[in-house]
């Protein structure tokens, strides 16, 4: 096989799986079979990645590159996708909807995300982003039972469409000045370009706005709480992790450390966005009564923290961003696993009341949730602690005084709402007598296993992160 096709193999595996699943559904509907095919496709894509890792870095034509960075992030996204498929199986089973098509959309979204992490050209960038977004419209509204879902999906559709248009226009402007669409090359061309600096600057700014929307950072965050609230819990988990993570990987590759320091205005813009996200995200989270909305605002703040590491040009940049994302994936997927376990047939367990006194009904589940919240708050014994130390290290290394100060202030504010949820877990419901807690259904098996597995990873990487850090130390978004 030629190296030329190697980088697109994982995407091809996903698309093959998607086709097989589609044909299977046409022949005979079976939820279990479709889910298995989806998981098989993800596993096959993972196998292709393992093969790629052996020969990385490989340049796949103009559009894709498979270096260590791309392979690692692709593996991360696939892992999140597999977790979401398992969660979704339990979630959709027994609901009065046809569940099979969910996996088609999921595989499509994963293919888009994989394209994003390997993209090194505007064409693959845009194609990946659109494939991801179009699949997400469907996923957000999937069971179509609730008006909030439709609201979330339409909001995402409209805003996402608008931001894609801005992104495309920005790309056109940059291309017009530099004459190239390949990433690292266009920054060099920009340096040599005789004129058109203003147009290129405007193009860059539009690109920042486009990706800022996908990341849900302030001031492009308005969709986040509604979409988080409206989407089914597993889909929310997918948006929070795989979708945003893949876009962040792309941003890391596009604005490499040296490229960013060559663009002072864009650098300053990222600084403003980071500070605003950390402060506003955390402040707005204080007022939330819905756990999904709370996690949405907290995710805004977390991507603000990530931007601090992103802005640091030093050697800690990639390691800090990558470990923080890994920790965030493990934590947030875990939190949504808990939510899926608790969700009934009618609605998701996203109200604060659903968690009140959980410690007395489901001590292990409550314990896992406590550790996930502490991880989000960056406390020790969890991966979130190590991640936060890395981000602060990257910020201090680059002497980003204001962003680091905002990070400290933001995480101080965030304690209020994380601790409020933790306190609710331990509060005895006033009306229920302490003697006999009502019998609760145990929840889907897959989601329970997922919760346990993610909990183990959370604690393992919080206490002994050596192995994963050794892997992360090897990767770096390279130039083709």
């Amino acid at each position, binding site marked *: 096989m030629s190296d030329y096709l190697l980088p697109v193999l994982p995407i091809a595996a996903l698309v093959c799986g998607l086709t097989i699943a589609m044909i299977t559904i046409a022949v005979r509907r079976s939820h279990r079979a479709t889910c298995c095919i989806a998981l098989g496709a993800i596993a096959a894509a993972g196998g292709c990645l393992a093969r790629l890792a052996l020969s990385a870095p490989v340049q796949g034509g103009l559009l894709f590159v498979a270096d260590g960075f791309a392979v690692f992030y692709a593996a991360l996204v696939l892992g999140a996708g597999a977790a979401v498929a398992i969660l979704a199986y339990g979630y959709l089973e027994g609901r009065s909807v046809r569940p099979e098509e969910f996996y088609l959309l999921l595989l499509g979204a994963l293919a888009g995300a994989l394209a994003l992490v390997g993209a090194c050209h505007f064409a693959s960038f845009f194609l990946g982003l659109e494939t991801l977004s179009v699949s997400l419209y469907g996923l957000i509204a999937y069971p179509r039972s609730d008006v909030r879902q439709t609201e979330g999906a339409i909001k995402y559709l409209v805003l996402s469409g608008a931001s894609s248009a801005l992104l495309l226009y920005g790309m056109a402007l940059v291309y017009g000045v530099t004459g190239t669409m390949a990433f690292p090359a266009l920054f060099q061309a920009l340096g040599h370009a005789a004129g058109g600096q203003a147009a290129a600057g405007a193009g860059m700014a539009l690109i920042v706005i486009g990706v800022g929307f996908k990341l849900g950072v302030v001031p492009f965050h308005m969709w986040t709480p509604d979409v988080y609230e409206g989407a089914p819990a597993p889909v929310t988990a997918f948006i929070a992790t795989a979708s945003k993570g893949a876009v962040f990987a792309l941003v890391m590759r596009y604005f490499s450390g040296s490229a960013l320091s060559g663009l002072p205005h864009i650098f300053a813009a990222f600084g403003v966005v980071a500070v605003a996200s950390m402060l506003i995200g955390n402040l707005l989270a204080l007022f939330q009564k819905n756990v999904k909305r709370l996690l949405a605002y907290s995710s805004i703040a977390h991507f603000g923290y990530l931007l601090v590491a992103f802005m640091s040009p030093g050697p800690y940049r990639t390691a800090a961003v990558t470990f923080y994302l890994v920790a965030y994936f493990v934590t947030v997927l875990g939190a949504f696993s808990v939510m899926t376990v608790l969700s009934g047939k009618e609605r998701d367990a996203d109200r604060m009341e659903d968690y009140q006194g959980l410690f007395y009904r489901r001590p292990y589940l409550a314990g896992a949730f406590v550790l996930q919240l502490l991880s989000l708050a960056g406390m020790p014994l969890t991966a979130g*602690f190590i991640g936060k*130390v890395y981000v*602060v290290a990257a910020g*201090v290394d680059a002497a980003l005084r204001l962003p680091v100060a905002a990070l400290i202030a933001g995480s*101080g504010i965030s304690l209020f709402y994380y601790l409020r949820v933790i306190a609710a877990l331990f509060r005895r419901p006033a009306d229920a007598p302490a003697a006999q807690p009502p019998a609760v259904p145990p929840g889907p098996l897959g989601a329970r296993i997922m919760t346990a597995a993610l909990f183990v990873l959370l604690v393992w990487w919080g206490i002994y992160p050596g192995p994963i850090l050794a892997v992360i130390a090897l990767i770096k978004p390279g130039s083709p």
Partner: protein
Amino acid sequence: MILVAIVFVPIASGLAAWLSERISGRLPRVVSLAGFIVDLLLVALLWGEASLRPSGAGPWIASFRAAWHPLPAVSFHLAADGVSLVLLALTAFLGCMAAAASWTEITERTGFFHLCLSWTVAGVAGVFCALDLFLFYFAWELMLVPMYFLIALWGHEDRFRAAVKFFIFTQVSGLLMLVAILGLYFAHINIGGVATFDYPALFATPLSPSVALLVQAGFLAAFLVKLPAVPFHTWLPDAHTQAPTAGSIVLAGLLLKTGAYGIIRFSVPLFAQAGGQPAFPLAVLGVASILYGALLAFGQNDVKRLVAYTSVSHMGFVLTGVVLGSGIAFQGAMIQIVSHGLSTGALFVMAGILQERLGTRDMGRMGAFWTDAPRMGGFLMCFALASMGLPGLGNFVGEFLVVLGAYRVSPALAAFASAGFIFSTAYSLRLVHRVFFGERKDTKQPIADLSGRETAVMLLMLVPLLWLGLAPQGVIDRVKGSGTVQAAAKDGHAAGHAPVAAVEARDVRGGAR
């Protein structure tokens, strides 16, 4: 290796206590007490080892290093010198007392309670002997979470707000310390050093004045909040008042001491690098805490709140003692740290006993309990006298040495600090008077005197306090010449059994220079 055991025994016993709740709700307290006793024996073993060491053998009595790589260049490095040893002894001892004091107070979720208690103690022990700065920060943050649960789950009426306040104050100031640690780390790399988080290497880094100021500010933020010094003390009365007895003991006896320890270990060397000048404002802050804390203590009606404010006042002596740079004041501060842990811990136990009996901490509803409970009154009297600095008890030695050291630096400072003695007399006597004398208030039925277990706890806390008051040389010998790299280098040649007078003489020479 023994240090690893000291840190991990409470972690293991906490887990065991948690699991043992399945067998019986009463088992966890036994398991956790047993863990603390083993810990205390281990510390005693280390103490024996320390006193057998030849003089001039270097500051570190024991150390342990293992690979652990959360960040590059981090290692799991524990080591104890004299200061750590004294504090570890206090930690294990107060752990025992806290477990014993909550014997009947805690009836709900006993397993989880003892897990939190043991892990807080383990975190504190880790802070006292972590010599890798990342590990120090890890332990510093680690003790926060179980302490939060102790207050938030088993505390009194307004527990949640108090717990959150405690958590936020300490976590935000802790993050500032993290920035300082990382600043020091990068400064060390930039001067061409290798990447390391090791204490001796990092604190030998020459810093430019502006960087030194930022690093110092970051460390001080964490330590002054934890200590706490006025004006960063506002979390303390709330946390103390709402915490269960064991929580108050651990908070006053151990968590506040981590702040003092941090100043000794990290801030003082930085001051020494900067020529020692900026330390004086801190000594003034310490004296302000002495007076302000005492003044507020006098105005309280809630027993626990009163004792909490006396903590602010007593820790003011510690702050003044450690920053002055005088050997004698430092020894006084160390004695004060231990005696305050014992006397205040005992006062909190007493407040807890009263609350368990009466269901209130309001002094307005107490009075004339002496006839019913003479033993309780006698013990309260002893600890109140200790708190006001009666000669013969540990606090006197500590406060006296601090004031003596302060006099060398500034007589005015010493004069203000000694005004604290007057205030403390006022609040201590008021406490004893309102609770045990005066007129009987609304409680009609007689209150029970101390049970055998409670008497034992009180007695166990009184004996070391007397020992410190009458023969403090044992502790002074241990802490002399340790605490910082600089102190070790300066005093290393003379470390031995020099009596106080000799230390004084050396001090005078230091002052003349």
